């Protein structure tokens, strides 16, 4: 076995794209979802930082459908900050979750890595990547999947899987089953050896061959589940994980930490809180402190950007993240919220369970709040870019699109 100092690792983070989902509206009108800040850092910063802990990490690739210019500044800045090469690759057409990886195999294999991590950007977790890599080496398979146990009722939103309790081998995998299969689910974080490319190519070839069969009756054609998928469209779950389960090629590694998927703005508030809580352990110096005398009263986990100004009589927290150049006035109360860049919150206003968009203004004694149900459509109040809430106005359980001024109180409304 080669010494581990020779074995390089490459990480690939799938960041998705603008038409891949409208669920992150209205925030996605102003920023690509992967760059939306959680606990003060862009969403994709968290998995990238985690990758940095992998020994012998040679390169990180971000793969997505966004225009290159949308990631240019970020990629340059984070490469510099973390001293690791990060590059954004734009997929020209959809190839499926595995096909995308295959599409860029030449670049990925440029450093001759012995292992390749594949992560989904919209996953919020502790990313135990070095431990996962060690486990993968012990198992000796082609791939290892990060898994977590969830409440049985929610398992069917994800890929459910069954693993051997002794060997940790993946025995069975089903994507979003209708009936209960297992309460262990796929976290969307994987490590592979380079033979995964051969497996992906195998799927393409098989599909091409099937398409060439002449004597398929029209009835049979209706039954073939993949008849409408192009040969180079390969999905990781259905085309690789499911078929290879039980063949001693795929293994699982269980995480006992937190895990969430960041699909909606409401969930981004929840995940921001999870990362703030994680900072409490990994980098407590990032979090704010204050006792109300020289600086604002801070309770719980709070992040405040160095350029933000917070009046000493304000009370902030728990679970609050304040971005660059925000101004928080006297007597303001902020609870469980994300305050984005250049926001101005005037005296004695209250914000609870909300996201306040860039450049917005919250007037004096006004109240912006929600029930805080991260899964409900209007469970977290979202104010888009440049929204003005006038003095004493109340906004509850609502979503407000950019550039609106609210001079009357609203409840349970979407304001276009």
């Amino acid at each position, binding site marked *: 076995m080669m010494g581990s100092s020779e074995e390089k690792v490459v990480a690939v983070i799938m960041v998705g794209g603008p038409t891949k989902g409208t669920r992150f509206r209205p925030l996605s009108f102003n920023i690509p979802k992967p760059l939306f800040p959680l606990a003060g850092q862009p969403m994709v910063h968290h998995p990238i930082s985690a990758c940095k802990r992998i020994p012998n990490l040679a390169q990180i690739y971000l793969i997505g459908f966004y225009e290159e210019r949308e990631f240019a500044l970020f990629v340059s800045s984070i490469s510099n900050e973390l001293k690791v090469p990060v590059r954004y690759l734009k997929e020209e057409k959809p190839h499926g979750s595995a096909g995308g990886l295959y599409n860029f195999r030449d670049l990925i294999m440029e450093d001759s890595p012995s292992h390749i991590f594949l992560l989904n950007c919209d996953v919020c977790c502790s990313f135990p990547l070095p431990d996962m890599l060690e486990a993968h080496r012990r198992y000796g398979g082609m791939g290892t999947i990060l898994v977590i146990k969830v409440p049985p009722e929610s398992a069917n939103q994800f890929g459910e899987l069954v693993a051997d309790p002794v060997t940790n081998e993946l025995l069975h995998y089903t994507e979003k089953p209708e009936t209960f299969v297992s309460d262990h689910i796929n976290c969307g974080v994987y490590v592979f050896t380079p033979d995964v490319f051969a497996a992906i190519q195998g799927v393409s070839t098989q599909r091409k061959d099937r398409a060439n069969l002449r004597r398929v009756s029209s009835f049979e054609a209706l039954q073939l589940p993949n008849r409408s998928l192009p040969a180079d469209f390969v999905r990781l779950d259905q085309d690789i994980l499911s078929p290879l389960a039980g063949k001693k090629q795929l293994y699982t590694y269980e995480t006992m930490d937190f895990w969430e998927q960041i699909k909606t703005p409401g969930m981004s508030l929840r995940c921001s809180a999870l990362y703030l809580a994680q900072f409490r352990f990994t980098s407590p110096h990032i979090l704010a402190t204050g006792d109300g005398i020289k600086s604002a009263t801070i309770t719980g986990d709070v992040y405040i950007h160095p350029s933000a100004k917070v009046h000493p009589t304000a009370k902030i927290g728990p679970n609050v993240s304040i971005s660059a150049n925000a101004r928080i006035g006297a007597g303001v109360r902020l609870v469980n919220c994300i305050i984005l860049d250049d926001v101005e919150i005037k005296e004695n206003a209250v914000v609870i369970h909300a996201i306040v968009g860039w450049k917005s203004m919250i007037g004096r004694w006004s109240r912006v709040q929600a029930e805080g149900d991260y899964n409900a459509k209007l469970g977290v109040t979202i104010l888009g870019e440049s929204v003005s809430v006038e003095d004493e106005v109340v906004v509850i359980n609502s979503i407000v699109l950019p550039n*609106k001024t609210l001079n009357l109180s609203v409840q349970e409304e*979407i304001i*276009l």
Partner: protein
Amino acid sequence: MKALILVGGFGTRLRPLTLSVPKPLVDFANKPMILHQIEALKAIGVTEVVLAINYQPEVMLNFLKDFEEKLGIRITCSQETEPLGTAGPLALARDKLADGSGEPFFVLNSDVISEYPLKEMIEFHKSHGGEASIMVTKVDEPSKYGVVVLEEATGQVERFVEKPKLFVGNKINAGIYLLNPSVLDRIELRPTSIEKEVFPKIAAEKMLYAMVLPGFWMDIGQPRDYITGLRLYLDSLRKKDASKLASGTHIVGNVLVHESAKIGEGCLIGPDVAIGPGCVVEAGVRLSRCTVMRGVRIKKHACISSSIIGWHSTVGQWARVENMTILGEDVHVCDEIYSNGGVVLPHKEIKSSILKPEIVM
């Protein structure tokens, strides 16, 4: 002669349509809203139009390049860096409007559609010799607006009353002005309201006159009024130039169909419908009181009323779309779906019925 069109801001009341294009470029009766005004200005000899904008200037400028050539009129933009209200933009565009000729210039509000009797307005302005002329229009519910109280015989404006609680008159500001260059001396370059600050001063000096707008008037800045406005516009078109309207056994009332649109067999279209360029209306479709924008496909047997279907959308077979349904750009309503007042943002697919008015993000 010069003109200024107040285009202003974000057009949020016309969302989701204005999520795809700036408001002046939203099509009305198969033409960008602002083109109706620019054409009316060109027709009476205006040689330069200034657009006062503060949002998405690049998109506007691209559009203008095309139309400058086609129309043979100079179109420029005056961009506000902060919202300047309804008078401030005039100060900002001062140098473009006051060219030393002493000629009055027009100011139009971009949300308004009407018959634009601009020639009559020029004559009215000359005859009274005052400093400023405004068009007023008669409405049923004046308290929703700012009422202009005027002397019936001369049209001299006595005062403005904002949303009056008691009846003071039934004429409101129609958003069409003809101003002498001296008016520019009264406006500072800061956020200013022409109705609240500038006109009252001119009226006090007995130099402001109002002409009652003949024909229809509508502020089409929001979907409900847009649909009513189309009815009024097509009514007027029937009187002025009926040959532009569609005819045939499948047409009821006033219907405008672009020449590149295709309509299938067994359809019943109208009244008050506009069908844009490149649209395909398949067989057996019923359309009434609706606007179908460029590139839309309406599939067989569908039924649409009182709605706006945004660019490049599709409406599925047997779908029923009604009651102020507004589909943004690239929205696809699946077969057999019912939408009762759904307001759907761009790039969505509607796979289940919308039973009561709802915004789909």
